[in-house]
């Protein structure tokens, strides 16, 4: 590299007005553009590439979310326990409030912002189709949610290996937890994304998402506990179908050793839980794509 300050023999730098220069380099296709959008969206979800204060909330939530895993890991190693005090899959259930707040507060960053400020019309005037745009935004949110869900599992798994617990058993449990985390992330990203795409006001989207995720789960949990007390677990099992978190909890109860109120007991019910989780995810995604088609042609 030449020294820019030596642009002239005298060593003084000179600014040349080269006029307008056309761009003759590479132009990439929609696949590469969509990937770039997903990466940018993923960074934006954690406040990266945005103002300083927009990093505060996501990173505080992430730190709070990881704190129990680190504490549990410390206890496990120092106290020399025989098994993890909390299961991999149960972990997300314990921190579901943090997870809900994270998804509710960061989905508007990806969805409401472009609609609110009209930036969407600049995206739509570029090669990406509105449906690809919607899918890319959703993928960013899915990625961010997965980071939130998967990091604690990775930490707990690493700690369990350090503490020399049974590797095959831990691997099996961690794998099941990863699968469940994937299902929950699909569903949360769909629900939060859809709500945020319908609201140009960030505050409204946050409140509505928290209401749908946490309040619905609160109601379902109450029904499930009462059903169990009353000895009518059938009612609790059916109630569990009606909120993303209770679906997740039901599958955790069915597929792991964790104790949960009225988990699905029959194979049919397990499939219904799984099907419902996937159905919510798919329906939200389809509505999201449709929503952006509408925006594009408005």
């Amino acid at each position: 590299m030449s020294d820019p300050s030596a642009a002239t023999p005298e060593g003084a730098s000179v600014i040349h007005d080269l006029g307008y220069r056309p761009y003759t380099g590479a132009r990439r296709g929609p696949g590469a553009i969509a990937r770039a959008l997903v990466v940018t969206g993923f960074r934006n979800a954690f406040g990266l590439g945005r103002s300083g204060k927009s990093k505060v909330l996501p990173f505080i939530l992430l730190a709070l979310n990881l704190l129990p895993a680190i504490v549990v890991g410390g206890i496990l190693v120092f106290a020399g326990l025989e098994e993890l005090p909390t299961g991999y899959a149960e972990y997300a259930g314990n921190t579901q409030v943090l997870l809900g707040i994270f998804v509710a507060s960061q989905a508007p960053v990806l969805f409401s912002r472009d609609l609110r400020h009209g930036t969407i019309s600049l995206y739509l005037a570029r090669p990406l189709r509105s449906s690809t745009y919607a899918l890319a935004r959703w993928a960013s949110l899915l990625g961010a949610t997965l980071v939130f869900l998967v990091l604690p599992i990775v930490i707990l798994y690493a700690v369990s290996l350090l503490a020399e617990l049974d590797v095959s058993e831990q691997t099996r449990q961690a794998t099941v937890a990863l699968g469940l985390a994937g299902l929950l992330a699909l569903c949360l990203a769909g629900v939060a994304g859809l709500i945020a795409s319908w609201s140009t006001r960030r505050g409204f989207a946050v409140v509505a998402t928290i209401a749908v995720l946490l309040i619905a789960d609160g109601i379902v949990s109450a029904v499930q506990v009462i059903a169990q007390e009353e000895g009518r677990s059938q009612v609790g099992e059916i109630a569990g179908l009606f909120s993303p978190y209770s679906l997740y909890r039901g599958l955790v109860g069915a597929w792991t050793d964790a104790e949960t109120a009225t988990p699905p007991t029959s194979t049919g019910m397990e499939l219904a839980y799984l099907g419902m989780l996937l159905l919510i995810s798919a329906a939200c995604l389809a509505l999201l794509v449709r929503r952006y088609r509408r925006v594009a042609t408005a």
Partner: protein
Amino acid sequence: MTPVVRVEGLTKDYGSVLALDSLTLEIGGGTTGLVGANGAGKSTLLKILLGLIPPTGGRAEVLGHDIDTQGEAVRAAVGYLPEHDCLPPDVSASDFVVHLAMMSGLPRVAARERAAEVLRHVGLAEERYRPMGGYSTGMKQKAKLAQALAHDPRLVLLDEPTNGLDPAARDEMLGLVRRIGHDFGIAVIVTSHLLGELERVSDNVVVLDGGRLLRASRTDEFLNATGVLLVEVLGDDAQARMTAALTSAGVAAAARGGMITVDAADREVDVHDLIRDTASDLGLGLVRLQVDHRRIEDVFADADTQEVSDV
């Protein structure tokens, strides 16, 4: 020159409103002004050209790409400056233009270079690193223009680029629009409801009215169609004497305000010389001798009266 935009029988029926009524027109290179009252179909036309909304009927080609089947190729080669606000307040112009250049398919490194370059061209200096929420309207319009140019498009669609600008910023923006069309070699379609602006920057003017083409021609044809000269003379009873002398020389002359209009169209003798000699013979001071520039507004006035007489 191959047309930049070719539209054939384009119709857009929103049900309640017929936004475009079998519009047929061709737009060439250079700068084209798109004129029309609110609701004349300007924005609808731009959106259809971008492939954002499908037309009800007819077809259109942009830069040789059919909008129906090759919308992606059209959007890759076209830059768009929307009329409304479209800038996120918490992002700097620099980051924003880089991102949107990448959204047009440029690799990251190239996007950075292009962003720096176009921001320099539109005149955003140090402020490009500040969040755009704190920008003045003029700076916002520049940032919007920069993103439209970021991917080196072959055509830019500018929807009311001078909206809300103060006179100085307006002049600067018009200067930029002219440079894009003339120096950058990018075809420009610019809409405005202020006709005086388009007169200054555009080579061609397309007039839309109620979704139909009212007129499309070169700007100078609009302006020079009168063939009338304006003459101003100084002296005792100068105007009356001059008018009488010109009329007796066989030239149609009439007083208009403090000046004399002389019909110079279709004459074999050079009327300029005649006017000079007449003034000199009468001993009058010839203060002004200029072509009577019409304004685009006059064309509208003509069209209105024509429409009234049609009815």
